[in-house]
């Protein structure tokens, strides 16, 4: 669904931000990208979204596939109500679908907030609106750029579970950038560890998908995945 082949990216004559990066994300798969700040993971996400063009190599997405993007900030229009914010991607394409908008609000757990203005929402609610908006075009690909970094841990846990449920019900392929190793291990089918513009290695947590939220957080496979990521990252620094 997402295919990144030997991509290079840089600004002007500076050292490239990304160099020789290749990855694949299959349909319905969730891949997390972890790494220290400035390693190029957000840039990689922007390349996949088509917001930047690679200097070399190629980025391809499944033919005709819709892409949704969840930013670090909720990025809502403060002068529009929640419902209009969620409807925005449809409206920009000259479409309207009230049922789809309400379905996405419901799916994000904020079905009753459609008539509110963003300024009246909590951080977690605003992020749910942002997720609902990303879902409204029924995307085959969803990209997440550290969406929960600014939230309280408990709210973050709830939103992690929301993402896991949506992944099952909506069947999108996704790339999830985070600097939290635990979040990566909890959410992803596969984790790519990045450092200094390259992929360092891959970790597959392999946690039983049937485990409920609390047990999943306490699973030994999760701890093992975190320490494997730690290993890759410390090796890169050394």
């Amino acid at each position, binding site marked *: 669904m997402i295919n990144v082949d030997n991509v290079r990216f840089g600004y002007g004559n500076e050292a490239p931000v990304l160099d020789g990066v290749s990855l694949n994300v299959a349909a319905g798969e969730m891949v997390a990208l972890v790494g220290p700040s400035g390693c190029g993971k957000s840039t990689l996400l*922007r390349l996949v*979204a*088509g*917001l930047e063009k690679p200097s070399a190599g190629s980025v391809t997405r499944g033919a005709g596939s819709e*892409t949704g*993007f969840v*930013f*670090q*900030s909720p*990025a809502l*229009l*403060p*002068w*529009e*109500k929640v419902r209009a914010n969620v409807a*925005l*991607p449809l409206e*920009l*394409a000259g479409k309207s679908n009230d049922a789809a908008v309400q379905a996405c609000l419901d799916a994000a757990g904020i079905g009753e907030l459609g008539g*509110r*203005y963003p*300024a*009246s929402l*909590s951080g977690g609610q605003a992020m749910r609106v942002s997720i609902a908006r990303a879902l409204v*075009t029924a995307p085959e690909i969803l990209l997440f750029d550290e969406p929960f970094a600014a939230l309280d841990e408990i709210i973050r846990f709830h939103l992690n579970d929301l993402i896991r449920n949506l992944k099952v019900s909506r069947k999108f392929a996704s790339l999830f950038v985070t600097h939290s190793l635990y979040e990566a291990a909890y959410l992803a089918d596969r984790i790519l560890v990045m450092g200094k513009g390259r992929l360092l290695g891959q970790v597959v947590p392999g946690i039983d998908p049937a485990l409920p939220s609390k047990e999943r957080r306490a699973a030994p496979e999760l701890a093992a995945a975190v320490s494997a990521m730690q290993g890759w990252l410390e090796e890169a620094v050394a």
Partner: protein
Amino acid sequence: MKTRILAPVLSLLLAIIAWEAGVALTGVSKFILPAPSAIGAELVGSIPEFASSAAFTLKITLLALAAALLTGLVLAFLFSLSGTIEAALSPIAVILQVTPIVAVAPLILIWVGIDNVERALVIIAWLAAFFPILATLTSGLKAVDPALADLFRLYKATPWQRFSRLVVPTALPYLFAGLRVGSGLALIGAVVAEFVAGSGEAAGLAWRILEAGNRLQVERLFVGLFWLIALGVGLYYSVGLAERFLLKPQRVDKGALH
């Protein structure tokens, strides 16, 4: 909330009482400082003359403000389209801003004011009001949230969609900030222009003040000031009201956070 209205009203009332008592006790000449009661009587007695003068000054101010808004909008929009245009024209705007209008007023009166004083007055007041509107709008048009800009690109918004749905609503609060400052400056510009123009066709509030000053009618001087203050405050709050009406959504819920 009650104290927020009551407190300034009371303090103003106290000041007026102290003024009245001070004048009565010291017996200061009415040519230096007339009592508030005398000013009040003059104010009531001169309503017809001063109302027509106020209407004249208000007309000049509003025309200048409208011209400043229009030119500010057009220029700020051009600036947002091209850095070259901004680089070429913004020094001229700055020169217009830093030159004291009192100093350029005689020149403008000579150029365009001989056959039509009103036109000269509007241009002088426009000069005063134009820059803050241009400056705030220029920053407003550049203040778009980068994540929202990305969002619009991601969903392939047309340039018009981006402008109307993102850029204009972002810039609107800046526009009102500019209008607030600009409306006050347009009034100051109108008054300065009337002062420089002196007597003649111009019959605005500034001219009434000049006339009263020359005749040592100090009560009338105060009445003129009163009308000017009323105009300025009225303009300021009219802009505020329009702002609250147009920007309602962004403000209404702010107090209701959690």
